[in-house]
């Protein structure tokens, strides 16, 4: 009786892991394929039956990406835009979140409700007029156009407020008694406490900004301002002659690498962040 129960458990465990493993293979296989394809030789990505493994990896493909395409420009632009946008948005969110959590001021509730309400507005509606604003202030094809419209984050402010509410008021009062200004309180007490907690927000924003495609297509016109997704898109649609398609995979992999690195090193913060976000919402 006991024996058969044990055997049943073992059987169940095997089936369970088999299903989970199949799912994992499907999730990870495209990455594997991208990496081995990036190391393949001339025409090899089209060969049938497919080569599941590379016996003779061609690392030169990665150099070719830099020689024959404007990948480097796109990469640097994306780094710059993503960095500035992610941190400025985070900073603004922290500032507003601090005010909403730790000050009592007239109109606070109304303003906060309004802020929550703005989350209901889908990007589709504001898209065209935001573009018109960009045109009117002469920002077409500039970094500002990529960065500034996305800096106000209602969701970020909301989350920051939630974090700040957990900071005891006594901490601030102690600082005030010591004669610290409100700005110093914010920079020296609040920010250091709240930043680790905000890591998930920052990482989430990083992925979104790094992979952003729709808005850059609209406001960016010239190659020197292309972000990485635009560079890749151009490379894909007008693939240079005499260059092998494995180079396209090499570029794709390098474009993905920063997100993979961030994901693997910081996933602890990140995944728990999604979970709490879901539970709170």
């Amino acid at each position, binding site marked *: 009786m006991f024996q058969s129960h044990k055997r049943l458990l073992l059987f169940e465990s095997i089936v369970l892991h088999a299903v989970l493993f199949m799912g994992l293979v499907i999730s990870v296989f495209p990455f594997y394929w991208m990496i081995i394809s990036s190391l393949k030789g001339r025409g090899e990505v089209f060969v049938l039956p497919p080569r599941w493994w590379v016996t003779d990896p061609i690392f030169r493909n990665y150099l070719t990406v830099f020689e024959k395409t404007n990948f480097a420009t796109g990469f640097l632009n994306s780094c710059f835009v993503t960095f500035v946008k992610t941190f400025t948005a985070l900073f603004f969110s922290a500032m507003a979140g601090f005010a909403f959590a730790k000050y009592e001021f007239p109109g606070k509730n109304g303003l906060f409700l309004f802020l929550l309400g703005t989350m209901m507005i889908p990007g589709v509606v*504001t898209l065209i007029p935001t573009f018109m604003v960009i045109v009117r202030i002469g920002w077409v094809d500039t970094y500002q156009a990529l960065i500034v419209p996305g800096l106000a984050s209602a969701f970020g402010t909301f989350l920051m407020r939630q974090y700040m509410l957990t900071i005891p008021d006594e901490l601030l009062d102690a600082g005030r008694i010591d004669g610290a200004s409100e700005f110093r309180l914010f920079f020296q007490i609040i920010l250091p406490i709240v930043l680790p907690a905000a890591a998930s927000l920052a990482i989430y924003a990083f992925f979104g900004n790094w992979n952003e495609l729709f808005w850059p297509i609209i406001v960016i016109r010239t190659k020197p301002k292309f972000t990485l997704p635009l560079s890749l898109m151009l490379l894909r649609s007008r693939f240079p002659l005499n260059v092998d398609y494995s180079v396209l995979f090499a570029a794709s992999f390098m474009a993905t690498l920063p997100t993979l690195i961030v994901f693997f090193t910081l996933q602890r913060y990140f995944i728990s962040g999604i979970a709490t976000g879901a539970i709170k919402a």
Partner: protein
Amino acid sequence: MAVEQAQLRREKSKVMHTLEQMRKNWVAYLFISPFYILFAVFGLFSLLFSFYVSFHRWDGLTPMRWWGVKNYIDLFRDDVFLISIKNTFILLLWDIPFKVFTPLVLATLLNSHLTKLKGFFRTGYYLPEVTSAVVVAIVFSFFFNKNTGIINYLLGKIGIAPIGWLEDRFWAKVSLVLLSAWWSQGYHMVVYLAGLQSIPEELIEAAIVDGANRFQIFTRITLPLLRPMIIFSAVIATNAGIQRFAEPYLLTGGGPGYATLTMLQYLFGKAFESFRLGYASAMGYVLFVMIFLLSLVQLKLGGGRR
């Protein structure tokens, strides 16, 4: 008379008090100002201006012409727009199993006591989510290739004739759904997993003591408690589905014909390729209303007890 004056004085002191409070808390207003300034320029102004534009005929360069509600009327006579709505909703419907059902199954399996290496699996499942649309499109356009693609090769092994994944009207839609399933499954799974982990152990144990079998536990305890997660996941999936743009834009170009043209893709084309800004603005508002109504319906369906 005296009463009125006292009243007036009280009103006055109340105003003074408010002003005093505002002056004392000027830092707070300073701290929240970036959000409201940015929102005023890029959000509020945009919202109102786009409403205004939607009643005009405008190419963005020449002066606007008053056009009344004609943009809105034309929209509902525009066959391509209607097709794009239909496509968007078909894709949304086909998405459901992959965004609500399979992630729930995976999360349940992952949450089992028997499962080893939970973190490892979770990381693997989540991985696709961090990839950019362009990279996904590049890799999958190779997979879906009719002649050299790996999917048709594998299907050929079990005797299935090559499928025109991107060339056939039906299969092109399937391709988009499969791609988006691969892409976002991990996210939904993490949401369900969080929900499952928040269910108190004692509840399950009590049910076992009472003689409930696993199926009963799942349908009577787990599912009802997961309801908020299911609604959250459905809302996210609906919003993403209605605003689907990158996958069809990059993978099928909306084709073959108009078979995979989505609403946002059509709006994009009208606004930034044909420069019919008034028409596209009207389309934006129609989308807005649709998204709003759908969220309301979902909240109504799901929020019974809240």
